[in-house]
């Protein structure tokens, strides 16, 4: 129900109450007034009859000549008053008896006048007395009883008053209940909505209005819900965007950090190469000279020492060339290929190493994976590098899982997971940095650094997830068709 209608119902109820009370009062007053009028007339009739009898007595007993005029006066009044109450009297005694009463009054009047003219007529006097008594009896029967009407009226008034009080009380209670309900039905939803707006204002967007019905507040509630849903949706997408932004930012920072590390490393490598070349040539010349010299004491010892220098230079060269490889903007050889074939090839390459360590390699290559366009050789190098790391990480009889898939229609995924000892959380973020290694002296710390550079160059991304004791998972994202 609409609020307007609710208010109209409340107002209507009280209007109805007022009208009903008015009608009731009117009817009650009407009854009382007509009763009073009846009682007054009946009383008049009885008085008239008594006065008539008094003057009749004066006339008959004391022969008071003047009494005849009073008699006429009272008989006329009697007749008039009986006329006023004719309807009630007829109702009480019937039309016949009423006619008889009128006839008796006429007869009484004539007889009185006859007696006034001839006071000695005893027979007539007797007749008048008889008629008078009959009239008196009839009047007492008709009007005399009505004196009791005053008691009745009082009782009736009392009852009416009590009834009136109860009715008013009942109406007030009923009205109060109805109006309270109506008021509650208007104000409760408003309060709910107010509560809701407070919650929403406080940031809780999960609240929903449960208002039903067809009034303005319910429809306000529904509008509110729609607004809520939009707000929630907007906030969700905003949060999503912010999360993505954070991720992107982190990736950007990470890649910038690695790029500058790469530049520094490459710069150092460049600078080291020249003195290293001198060491190389000097040692080489010593080797050449000793090589052609005649036998002398400790010749072999010198040769092996120089061999050690040259071997160390070789190691340094491997490192500097590796580092320069990171910064090297080589042209990639793009070709269309099946990612699954690349992964299968890598598995093939590592067959022996896997067997030696009794490692179970599970592969999950969806057959419907689309072909991608990328540099096969470089991609192979990256996957090989990561799987080799995994082989080194897991213990004998461990597991490695390689799977391919699609992140979305434009990005392919390669995931390489092992159940090795994992990498502590604080070290994972350094995994791709140059010279970071978890293999101790066995690793150069350049493998993942170079892999990172390659994947980056192919327009992709490489991430690692690891927890101590839970193994490590590398995920490589590669664009399906990378345009340089």
């Amino acid at each position, binding site marked *: 129900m609409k609020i307007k209608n609710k208010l109209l119902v409340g107002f209507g109820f009280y209007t109805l109450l007022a009208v009903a009370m008015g009608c009731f009062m009117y009817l009650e007053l009407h009854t009382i007034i007509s009763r009073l009028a009846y009682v007054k007339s009946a009383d008049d009739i009885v008085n008239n009859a008594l006065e008539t009898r008094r003057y009749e007595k004066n006339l008959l007993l004391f022969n008071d000549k003047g009494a005849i005029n009073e008699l006429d006066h009272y008989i006329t009044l009697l007749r008039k008053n009986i006329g006023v109450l004719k309807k009630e009297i007829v109702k009480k005694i019937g039309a016949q008896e009423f006619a008889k009463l009128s006839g008796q009054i006429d007869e009484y009047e004539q007889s009185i006048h006859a007696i006034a003219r001839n006071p000695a007529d005893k027979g007539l006097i007797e007749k008048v007395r008889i008629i008078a008594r009959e009239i008196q009896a009839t009047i007492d029967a008709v009007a005399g009883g009505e004196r009791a009407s005053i008691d009745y009226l009082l009782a009736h008034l009392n009852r009416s008053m009590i009834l009136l009080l109860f009715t008013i009380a009942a109406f007030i209670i009923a009205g109060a209940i109805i109006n309270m309900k109506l008021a509650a039905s208007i104000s409760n939803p408003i309060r709910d909505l107010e509560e809701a707006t407070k919650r929403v204002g406080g940031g809780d967007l999960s609240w929903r209005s449960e208002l039903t019905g067809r009034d303005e507040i319910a429809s306000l509630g529904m509008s509110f819900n729609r607004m809520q849903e939009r707000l929630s949706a907007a906030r969700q997408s905003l949060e999503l965007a912010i999360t993505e932004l954070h991720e992107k930012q982190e990736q950007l920072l990470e890649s910038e950090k690695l790029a500058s590390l790469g530049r520094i490393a490459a710069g150092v490598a460049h600078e080291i*190469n*020249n003195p*290293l*070349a001198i060491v190389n*040539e000097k040692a080489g*010349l010593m080797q050449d000279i000793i090589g052609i010299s005649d036998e002398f004491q400790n010749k072999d010892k010198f040769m092996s020492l120089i061999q050690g220098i040259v071997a160390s230079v070789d190691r340094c060269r491997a490192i500097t060339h590796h580092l*320069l490889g990171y910064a090297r903007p080589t042209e990639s050889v793009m070709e269309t290929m099946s990612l699954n074939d690349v992964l299968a090839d890598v598995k093939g390459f590592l067959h022996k190493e896997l067997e030696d360590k009794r490692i179970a390699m599970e592969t999950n290559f969806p057959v419907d994976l689309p072909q991608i366009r990328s540099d096969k050789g470089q991609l192979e190098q990256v996957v090989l590098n990561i799987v080799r790391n995994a082989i080194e990480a897991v213990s004998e009889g461990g597991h490695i899982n390689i799977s391919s898939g699609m992140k979305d229609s434009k990005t392919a995924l390669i995931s390489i997971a092992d159940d090795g000892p994992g990498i502590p959380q604080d070290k994972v973020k350094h995994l791709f940095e140059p010279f970071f290694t978890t293999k101790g002296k066995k690793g150069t710390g350049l493998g993942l650094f170079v892999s990172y550079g390659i994947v980056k160059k192919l327009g992709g991304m490489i991430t690692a997830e690891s927890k101590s004791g839970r193994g490590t998972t590398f995920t490589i994202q590669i664009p399906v068709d990378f345009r340089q």
Partner: protein
Amino acid sequence: MSKKEIKVLLVDDEVEFVDTLGQRLKMRGLKVDIVYDGEQALSFVKKTAPDVIVLDLKMPGLDGMEVLREVKKLKPDVQVIILTGHGTDKDDEQARKLGGFDFIRKPADIDLLVVKIKEAFSEKIERAMTAITFAEAGVFETAERIIKKDE
């Protein structure tokens, strides 16, 4: 022809390096001349034509890449091997475009370097022979084109 001494010009501002390298190459039967910057290299080439130049890229004054360009203008048949500690793949590409024979990174293995020098020398001889063959046949244009191919 193959018994002929290969004339190698080493160009590098790193004296310690280039002198030592020179000695080692001499020990391996090559005829070695050494200069320490780009200008000297060019004036050397103008006077006498070496068979192969081993050229550093990063030098004060005229750098290796400019020297390579000039050498190929002056004497297109002289073969140039870049030997550098600073080279990127981009430099590699550019050097080859300018007619460089090969691109080796320092520190280099002496045996590899000698192999490359010999290869460069063979290349030079082969070109010359082809040019002569064409020239004898009267196809001067082709001969010239082969000689100036790298420009």
